[in-house]
Every structure is written in C-alpha cells, then in structure tokens.
C-alpha cells in the first residue's frame, strides 16, 4: 500500500518527462559536450570557443576586438546596446501608459488590446514590419523625417550601418511595449483604489501619486518586466533574421544569429554549439533570478 502510494506520481510524471528528457534535457547536455568537441582530433578542447571568439568574419563576430569609429562592433555588443536602450524605454513608457490608462483615460481596454498586438503576431513578421516602417518613401518613419526636412533620416534605415541597429531596437519597442503595459496594468489592479483617493483628498497631484504611491507598490512587477525584457533582448533572433539578416556589414548581428550562421551557413555544428553555450551563459543569471522568484 505504501509502495503503491509512492509509485502513484509516476503514472502522471513518466510519460511527459520522457518526452522532455529525450527532446530537451538530452540535447542541452549534449550541446555542452559538442561545444568542446574537436572534429579534427576527436578530443575535447577549448578550440571551438577560441575560434568562435576570435572570428574575423563580420557576420560571426561575437566580441569586438577593436573599436572603429563606426559599427559593426560585434554581436554581444549589439545585444547589450539593445538591452541598454530597449529595457529602460519599455519599462518607463509602459509604466506611464499603464498608469494613465488606469486612472485617467477612457477606452483603455481598446488601447491595451491595440498595444498588445505586437506580442501576438509572429516575431518574424514583426521583423518584416520593422523593415517596412523604416523603408524610404514607404515607411512611416522616413516619410515623417522627409516631411520635417531631415534628409539623413529619410532614407531606408536598415540599409545603413549607422542606423540599422537603432531601427531594429526602436521597432522592437513597438513590438514589445504591450508586454510591459499589460503586466503593469494588471499589477496596478492590486493597488487599493482607496490609497489613491486618499492622496487626492490631501491634494496630491497626478505625478505625486504616481511616484509616491503607485510606483513603490509596483516593484515586483518592475523586476519582472525588466528581467523578461532583458531575456527577450538577449535571445532575440526572428526579428533580426527577417528584417536585416545581420547586415549591412554585420552591423545588426546578435548572438542567436551568429549561432545560426555557424549552423546553417558554415555548417560547423560544433562551433555553433559553442556559441549556443555562450548565449546561455549570458542569459542564465537572469533565468536563475526568475526561478528564485517563482519558487519563493
């Protein structure tokens, strides 16, 4: 009887976890193994990592070794630039919009639904739309700049190394803002309305209420938005693949794309495993952070 009770969970766990073990756990472990595998000698070494990190092919550069005055700088730097711009913009804009929608704007449900569209569509199509937004004569951004008379920004942004990465990052704000607005709006639901009313009675302004009452209570939600956006930025692939493919001249390559280039263009599976491991090492601290939070 006690044995039967012990075995009971197995009925529920064995079939699903078999699938997970074969198609997720095994390949993850094997990727680490392959990343050290030297295809010439059959021994384990750090050569794959060394070659991957020292590559001079612009489409495969991970780490910048010399800063020239123009991009490309290397995939890792592009990911970091992405994080440095995307995370603060999405967080602050999301906070402000969610706040305005909650307390001051009519029809907020519709606006939230519209902003959320970017999360629902395939990221690959998102990449094509970003390309479309920044295309000379057709895209809304160059049209706007040509209307204002800024010639340098009225051309196709994704064709020039100076503007390509910026175009993708701004486009990804357009795609991802719905995430932060939705998370913040849901978190604001949990703030008792009486707190706000009380502050109003005491004559607090809209912005005072925001900084003194709403923002402090949103700390857990802010952490989630920051970390999830970070993870999204570091793992980004589809958008870049569909819009620029890493070009022009490697100015928009990102880590995941370098991995794919080794895999599909160079057909060098062991080096591509090494890049996959590097990518994972970059994201793992943030994954651990989220796991701690969810279990705690």
């Amino acid at each position, binding site marked *: 009887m006690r044995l039967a009770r012990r075995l009971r969970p197995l009925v529920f766990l064995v079939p699903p976890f078999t699938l997970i073990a074969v198609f997720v756990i095994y390949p993850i472990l094997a990727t680490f193994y392959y990343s050290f595998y030297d295809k010439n000698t059959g021994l384990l070494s750090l050569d794959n990592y060394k070659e991957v990190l020292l590559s001079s092919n612009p489409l495969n550069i991970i780490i910048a070794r010399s800063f020239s005055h123009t991009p490309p700088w290397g995939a890792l730097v592009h990911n970091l630039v992405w994080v440095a711009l995307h995370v603060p913009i999405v967080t602050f804009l999301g906070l402000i919009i969610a706040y305005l929608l909650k307390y001051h704007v009519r029809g907020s449900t519709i606006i939230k639904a519209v902003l959320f569209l970017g999360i*629902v569509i395939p990221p690959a199509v998102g990449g094509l739309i970003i390309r479309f937004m920044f295309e000379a004569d057709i895209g*809304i951004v160059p049209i706007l700049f040509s209307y204002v008379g800024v010639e340098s920004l009225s051309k196709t942004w994704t064709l020039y190394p100076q503007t390509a990465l910026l175009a993708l990052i701004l486009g990804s704000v357009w795609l991802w803002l719905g995430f932060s607005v939705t998370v913040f709006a849901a978190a604001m639901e949990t703030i008792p309305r009486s707190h706000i009313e009380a502050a109003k009675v005491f004559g607090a302004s809209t912005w005072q209420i925001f900084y003194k009452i709403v923002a402090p209570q949103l700390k857990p939600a802010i952490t989630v938005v920051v970390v999830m956006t970070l993870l999204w930025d570091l793992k980004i692939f589809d958008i870049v693949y*569909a819009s620029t493919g890493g070009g022009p001249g490697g100015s928009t390559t990102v880590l995941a794309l370098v991995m*794919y280039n080794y895999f599909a263009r160079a057909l060098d599976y062991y080096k591509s495993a090494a890049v996959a491991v590097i990518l994972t090492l970059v994201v793992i601290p943030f994954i651990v952070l989220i796991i701690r939070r969810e279990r705690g």
Partner: protein
Amino acid sequence: MKKSFISRRAFKTLALNLVVWVFALAWMLPFIGLVAVSIQPYREVVVKGWVRVPDLSSLTLNNYIEALRNPLYDLATGYRNSVIVAFLSSLIPVVAAALTAYAFANLDFRLKALLFATILFIMMVPQQLTVVPLFLLYRNLGLYDTFQGIILLHSAWGIAWVTFFLRNYLRFIPRSLVEAARVDGASEITIFYKIILPLSIPALIASFIMQFTWVWNDLFYALVFLASRDKQVITQKVVMLKGEFHIDWGLLTAGSIISMSTPLILYVVFNKYFMRGVAAWGVKR
C-alpha cells in the same frame, strides 16, 4: 472660482485623453500602412505612396492571390503545414502537461522541487541550446525534415510552460475536493479524470490557444528542422518573400497579413486568455 477650477481639471483630462489616443493611433500606423499597401498594385504605391485615401477603382487582391498561389512563394502550402504542425504540437503537450500539472498541484513526491525548477529552466532557456544534437540525431533517425520530428520537439518544449501554467491554475481548486474523493476511495486517475479535468477546461483551452500561437509564430525551429519546399511552414515562406535586393512590398505586406491572420483571429476571439496569461507575471503568487 470653484467653477474655473473644475473646468481646468476637465480640460486637463481632455488633453490627456487626446494625447494618449493620438499615441495609440500612431502605434497603429504600421498596421494601417501594411493593409493599405497590400490591397493596391505596388506600382501605384511606388508612384503615389500610401498615405492617402486609395482609389477604390485600383483596389485589388492580386498581391494576396500571388503570394498564396504563385509556386515561387506558395504561402498556401506553408499555411497548411503550419496548421498541421501547430495543431498537433499543441494537443500533445496540453494533454501531457495536464498530467504533470496535476501531480505538481496535488501529489507529494521526491524531487518535486528539482523537477519544478527544471520546468522553469526549460521555459526560459534559449532554443539555440537544443538544436545541434537534435539535428544530428534526427538525421540519423530519419526525423529530419519531417513533421513528426518538429512536432515532438515543440511538444516536449511546450510541456514545460503548459505545466507551469496549469499548475498555477489547479492550485486554486480547493485541495479539500481532492482529499474528500480520496477518502471515498477514488483512485488518483479517477480524481484527475472526473474532478480536476472538467474543472480546468478553461485553462486547458487557454493553454492550447497560447501554445498554438507560439508554435505558429516559431521561425527558428522550423528553419533548423524543416527544409524542403513542401514541408516549410508559413513563417519560413513569408521571410523568403523578401528578395535579396529588390523588395516587392505589395507581395510582402500581403504575405505578412496572411501569416499573422491566424494568431490575430485567435487573439480577437480569445483576447482575455492572452492578456491574463501575460498579466499573471506581474501579480505576486
């Protein structure tokens, strides 16, 4: 004095509403442009642009027909393949994850904490970390460039987050319900089948819809594991609409709309599920 104070407040509110609504409309502009370009001959867009009221006489569905039917682009096949892959890759993990989620919510067993952490880890680890060994394995097993291969991978991957999602839902079903059934001598399978499953139908639908959308939207796994033209899914096909040097935006906008139509329709119908799924991240559990 008092009156002017109120009207000033009303004016502020009005201005604020205006600003936010203009912002939301500006956010929609790329979509509006997409639709406008897709329903006109591209030559006309090149000459006149799309920021205008289009001539009704020149409206056409040719871009859509071309993208779907022309054997060079063949989005129709991609669409069919996406339906097959996404449907089965959602059905399998939802059924499997219902089992694991029940175990996590209602049973105590060894390694529970470790297995749960594993599930969370899989949810967030980069897809890139799994493909190389699977590609080599699939080539040997004859699973490369087959629907079975990619469906199995998507299913295993999906089990992780669907388990997480369903377990959070099942925790709100009172455990006393399960205890009572146990006292009455019902087996765990009976409890699962007769009590828990019927109660969790909304969550099952929600996770099916979200997994379906996730698989539909996937590009990376498809690029790695599906190669031949008659196997490729819609995200692969639509990316190929973009030529190396010349871009026919009529074709590309029509293709984009076709390939995002399915997730958009699901989103419109099941709006609540999508928003709640994401919103849950922000609320402390």
